[in-house]
């Protein structure tokens, strides 16, 4: 029988990565004498080694063996937990990750770091006088060499102790195993059998003399008795070939005692060699194998159970409705209605349940930060404590995967630019140790992730001067705090006085914002001088479903994401200002909001081309408000987002499409995209009149009012 081991590799990889994460986070928490933590680190390494051995990844097995040996010494107290060792182990975890990633991606991995780290591990282990035992290699072939083709006759005397069967061993099965090696002749000796009334059925009182005709060597025979060697007397003797015929006669006499012959002895004190049998490397990578990363999700049984329950309810509703349909008359309308109501409820719950399957706790994204902050604080010499909050907050898997890198950047930024040096902190009367907090929580249909530091806050003046230098603003521009902080996300912007290799030259903050926006989220900065800064990331819970406001423009229905809507209103005539020809501004309290007629933007016929008759939906993105002019407001509903890209292409101002209840398709508006489109137009219109960049709300309105 052959089993294709490659099918288990994705799951091995998955649990190995989990194991590595556990090792890493535990190493960061490790304190002297913390037995449970060191045990769990050891266990994780041990499991990875075991799996790697089973699936034939020798490089992982060999490397992990060193790690495991070091951990074992720490575990049983032979070695004190020194910070250097912990750092070495952290590096080792990185190496193991490299090795396992190279298996996943089916690429050769860069061995230089691994060679270097294993040398260090060996040196550390050797320095304390503990010899490094050889890692088990699965393709050892030690038993094969000694095998001969010649058949020999073996005499085996097997006298089990009375309690042998109580460990689940069964003499008959041992003999069967022996029979696999060759021809077996058995003679049982019942001399020691007690009288029937004294007989304990749970004990064994027989002994056996066995003649084995086999080409097997002694080790192979011993291996059969390996499990019972402590619970029996076992004497194995090899006879010369010519004596073979005599053996039967000899067998009928007493079993030979220890002293009489010159047997090869196996007793309780004898040492058994490594019993590992040669093993086929059946999992050696084959070129045809598909990529190991199948993008699987591990789902809790409770979530699956709730799905099954809901499907059960759906089936009941369905059968109820179809029964109703069999002979329907008007008297049953009420039952039909309640049935449909039930169907609606079932569908809604089912949808929520299915969405929940894609939800994972944000700890999957958070768990890399302790290591990151540990490494960064070492590098910068800043003493920093990282606090994680709301790690169980659930988030869509895809969102999670894409938010990881932006978060890393924000945390790096907080370490590098946020937290001051210890001297500065002490001089300002703050504790020497800086704090960075990562917090995640749900708010409405969104998840909020905050990266908060208790550092010096953002220096507005420095930001402004930098923006001036870059030509993003001019001297007369007056900016609110929010607008100032928004400058941080401009491409190539950096406030660090010196370039550091941690967060670089601000390369990335613009990318951070772009990534968050592409997820349909937004980022906001709050900062108080001397007290610290908070970067607040607002993300949709899932990318697949969106809460939308349906609006009518002419014959078309569009969907505006609810998350972007500030308010919807009936325009009042006196608040409408027309400027520079075709530009319309609406006064919304303090703000002058540019009005964008959708029919104009999309080039379609509309019922009303006059703002006074239309409705205004005020939306906001990137701190910029605009008023979308629509004919009518329809329902609010959840819609499933479908990509236009699959069969068509990206369309400006449209983020996707959805299918409405009547089966027709409706376009979902891309609010940031529309703002960009409208601003481009506005820029064109006022190019000659204003030198102020139209990126900032205030400046647009000022520009057109003056």
């Amino acid at each position, binding site marked *: 029988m052959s089993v294709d081991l490659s099918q288990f590799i994705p799951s091995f990889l998955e649990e190995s990565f989990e194991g590595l994460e556990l090792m890493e986070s535990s190493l960061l928490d490790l304190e002297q004498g913390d037995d449970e933590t060191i045990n769990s680190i050891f266990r994780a390494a041990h*499991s990875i080694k075991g799996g790697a051995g*089973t699936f034939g990844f020798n490089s992982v097995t060999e490397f992990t063996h060193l790690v495991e040996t070091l951990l074992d010494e720490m575990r049983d107290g032979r070695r004190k937990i020194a910070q250097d060792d912990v750092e070495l182990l952290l590096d080792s975890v990185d190496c193991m990750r490299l090795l396992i990633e190279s298996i996943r991606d089916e690429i050769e991995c860069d061995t230089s770091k691994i060679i270097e780290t294993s040398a260090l591990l060996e040196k550390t282990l050797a320095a304390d006088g503990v010899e490094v035992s050889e890692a*088990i290699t699965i393709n050892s072939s030690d038993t094969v060499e000694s095998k001969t083709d010649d058949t020999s006759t073996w005499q085996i005397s097997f006298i089990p102790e009375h309690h042998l069967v109580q460990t689940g061993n069964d003499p008959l099965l041992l003999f069967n195993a022996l029979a696999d090696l060759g021809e077996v002749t058995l003679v049982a000796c019942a001399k020691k059998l007690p009288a029937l009334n004294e007989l304990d059925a749970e004990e064994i009182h027989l002994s056996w003399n066995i003649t084995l005709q086999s080409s097997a060597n002694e080790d192979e025979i011993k291996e059969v008795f390996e499990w019972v060697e402590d619970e029996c007397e076992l004497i194995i003797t090899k006879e010369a070939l010519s004596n073979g015929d005599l053996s039967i006669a000899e067998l009928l006499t007493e079993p030979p005692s220890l002293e009489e012959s010159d047997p090869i002895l196996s007793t309780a004190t004898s040492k058994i060699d490594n019993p590992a049998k040669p093993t086929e490397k059946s999992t050696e990578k084959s070129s045809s194998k598909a990529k190991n990363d199948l993008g699987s999700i591990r789902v809790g049984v409770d979530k699956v159970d709730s799905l099954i329950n809901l499907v059960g309810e759906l089936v009941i509703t369905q059968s109820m409705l179809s029964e109703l349909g069999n002979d329907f008359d008007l008297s049953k309308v009420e039952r039909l209605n309640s049935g449909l109501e039930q169907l609606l409820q079932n569908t809604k719950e089912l949808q929520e349940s299915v969405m929940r399957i894609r939800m994972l706790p944000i700890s999957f994204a958070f768990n890399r930060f302790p290591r990151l902050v540990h490494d960064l604080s070492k590098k910068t010499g800043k003493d920093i404590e990282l606090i994680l909050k709301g790690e169980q907050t659930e988030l869509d898997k895809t969102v999670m995967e894409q938010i990881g890198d932006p978060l890393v950047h924000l945390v790096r930024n907080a370490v590098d630019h946020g937290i001051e040096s210890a001297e500065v902190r002490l001089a300002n009367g703050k504790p020497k140790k800086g704090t960075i907090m990562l917090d995640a929580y749900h708010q409405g249909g969104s998840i909020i992730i905050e990266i908060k530091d208790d550092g010096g806050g953002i220096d507005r003046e420095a930001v402004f001067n930098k923006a001036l230098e870059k030509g993003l603003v001019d001297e007369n521009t007056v900016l609110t705090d929010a607008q100032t902080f928004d400058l941080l996300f401009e491409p190539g912007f950096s406030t660090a006085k010196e370039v550091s290799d941690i967060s670089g030259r601000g390369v990335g903050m613009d990318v951070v914002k772009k990534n968050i926006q592409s997820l349909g989220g937004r980022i906001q900065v709050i900062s108080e001088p001397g007290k610290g800064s908070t970067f607040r990331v607002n993300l949709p819970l899932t990318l697949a479903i969106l809460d939308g406001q349906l609006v009518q423009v002419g014959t078309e229905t569009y969907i505006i994401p609810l998350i972007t809507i500030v308010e919807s209103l009936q325009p009042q005539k006196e608040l409408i200002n027309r400027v520079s020809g075709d530009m319309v501004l609406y006064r919304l309290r303090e703000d002058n909001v540019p009005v964008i007629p959708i029919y104009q933007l999309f080039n379609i016929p509309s019922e009303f081309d006059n703002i006074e008759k239309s409705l205004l939906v005020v939306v906001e993105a990137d701190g910029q408000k605009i008023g979308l002019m629509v004919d009518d407001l329809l329902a609010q509903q959840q819609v499933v987002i479908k990509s236009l890209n699959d069969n068509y292409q990206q369309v400006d101002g449209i983020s996707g499409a959805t299918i409405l209840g009547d089966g027709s398709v409706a376009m979902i508006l891309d609010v940031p995209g529309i703002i960009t489109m409208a601003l481009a137009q506005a820029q064109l219109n006022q190019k000659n009149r204003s030198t102020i960049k139209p990126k900032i709300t205030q400046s647009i309105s000022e520009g057109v009012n003056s």
Partner: protein
Amino acid sequence: MTKILVVDDSNSIRDMVSFTLKSAGYETVEAKDGQDGLNKAKATSIDLVISDVNMPIMDGITLCQELRKLPSFKFTPILMLTTESSGDMKMRGKAAGATGWLVKPFNPEKLLATIKRVVR
């Protein structure tokens, strides 16, 4: 049908063992740690236990000791999956009442050959 309880905290190893056994016509019950294994062992009749040693919550040695305390597990074969090639872990296993052991890494063929030595 012979029913085998497979206890291992590693999904991949447990899946592999279980899959191999099922392919060979055995019935399997899976558990992810010693405690889980003990609960499942109490809940159903088992003909053979194959258990990892290093596991969270309850390790394989403890599981073995606990199982031997149950009347229905007095004679049930218990095999330990161990990565230790040294005799120490085997001795600990034996002391706890294990029938035998299977040293990791092992392949499906070796697994089945070993099982034949404890179940009829």
